[in-house]
């Protein structure tokens, strides 16, 4: 199978990866190779098969609605690259590129 440049660009944008041209070119071949290998399951007839998203048969796992202590502000912000007035500072927010 082949993957065109437009697809790679679209996926890279969805994934927020500012890939270089070289990387995009390499991705085209590598993704095609790996997905090509995955083509083998395309042929299987799986219409009657239920998907498995959890390998354990658990359901209704819930916690009681009880508030617990939160992190102190300085702990919450300790790893933040940039803060201002107890908030995390980020560059101008724009819509999808």
């Amino acid at each position: 199978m082949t993957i065109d440049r437009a697809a790679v660009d679209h996926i890279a944008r969805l994934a927020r990866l500012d890939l270089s041209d070289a990387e995009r070119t390499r991705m085209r071949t590598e993704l095609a190779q790996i997905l090509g290998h995955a083509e083998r399951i395309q042929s299987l007839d799986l219409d009657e098969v239920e998907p498995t998203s959890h390998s354990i048969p658990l359901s209704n796992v819930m916690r009681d609605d009880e508030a617990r202590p939160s992190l102190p502000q300085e702990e919450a912000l300790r790893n933040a690259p940039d803060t201002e007035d107890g908030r995390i500072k980020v560059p101008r927010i724009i819509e999808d590129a």
Partner: protein
Amino acid sequence: MPDLHWTGARELARMIEGGDVTAEEIAAAFVARSEAVEPSLHAYLHPTFDEAIDDARAADRRRAAGEARSAFDGVPVAYKDIFCTRAAPTTSGSKILDGFRPPYDATVVARCGAAGLAMLGKLNMDEFAMGSSTENSGFGPTKNPWDLERVPGGSSGGSTALVAAGGTPWAWGTDTGGSVRQPASLCGLVGVKPTYGMVSRYGIVAFASSLDQAGPVTRKVEDAAALLQLAAGHDPYDSTSIPRDVPDLVSGIDGGIDGMRVGIVREFQGAEGTQPGVAQRVEEAYARLEKLGARLEEISLPSFEHGISAYYLVAPAEASSNLARYDGVRYGFRASGAPDIVSMMSRTRDEGFGDEVKRRVMLGTYALAAGYYDAYYGKAQKVRTLITRDLERAYEQVDLIVSPTSPTTAFRLGERTSDPLAMYLSDIFTVPVNMAGNAAISVPCGTSPDDGLPVGLQIIARSLDEQTMFRAAYAFEQDLGWIDSAEGRPSL
């Protein structure tokens, strides 16, 4: 007294109990050994040697006061850098988390701490556990103590290299598609992938949530059972944790395997790319199991051939979502000088992630994208169902399933980095087990005649049947006697 650093954890506990040695002396021995081998291995990302010695001293004081936290109080342990720890940074092998200090401990770490284990440090790994060689670490590769030109396997290669070199009696790794069993096999160790849901995932940096499971890396089977016992069991902070008491994994371990039915997988006979020396040692292992009283039966797992294809859609898909949080906003690396949020996030992720991570994030995003979901992620989740059915059918016939852990012994650094698919195929025997959630262990079966490197036997058991799995592995290990012999130790 034998070299402390070649002594197993349970034996060490017995020696402390008998007053032959103190926890501090033990910690000092492993710190010394770690410092000796680290320059050639690069197993550590964040050593915490001083703290380990202090913790061991405190354990000795507790024991003197009759307040020991457990039989292992003061015994050293090391963690793959994927476990969140307050006491040391946690990077998951990625530059994007360089310097990250978690405000909490993973449940595994908390439980081992409650048992008094002294942390030697955090160990190297493939970035976000994506890899089979530890060459994908953002902080340089780890070497295999059996041959410094070769990889220790991965992604838990730091853990297996350090245990194999005698730098720690035991260590924790994580296994999403074979990341504990395969490196254990390549380093001549015991590696366990417990039943999905047996060990809490809380505080373990997620790779593929529905497949990730933490497991022990040890030299001896009894130590693997003991370490798993310390951390396993229901955790209310993990919704996928099985709400059930863990049976005693250690005491019945020497029960033998007489009459056990062991399945040999027809489809794996002469599987593509299996190294002859590996095939030979594994065949001998089957024969040894039979000699020990097991009844060998051939079984068929037709869907296993699709395991890799399905795994390399499911795992990257979940990973693409799990890794979305690394965006330079709340923690970790942030690319500088970006004019707006989109370019800041995109540059941070491009500069912060390594090639393999970017490859899998792209792959997973593709598999989930509109128009591709049904063909890729959807189908892969259905193949998972087929694999599970195959195993259920097999368990009507047998108690355990055996196979090689890895089709080859340790390969050379750089040998497969240029060929991702070849690298992926080294997980062919381990991946289906994660897809079904079953328990599995890799146990050494000597070295390969063609290259003198360790070979591992994989023993797969029903979900929650770790007891049977450990009994078989223990019986095999005891009868082989390899690990306690001189051949069982790399000449490092």
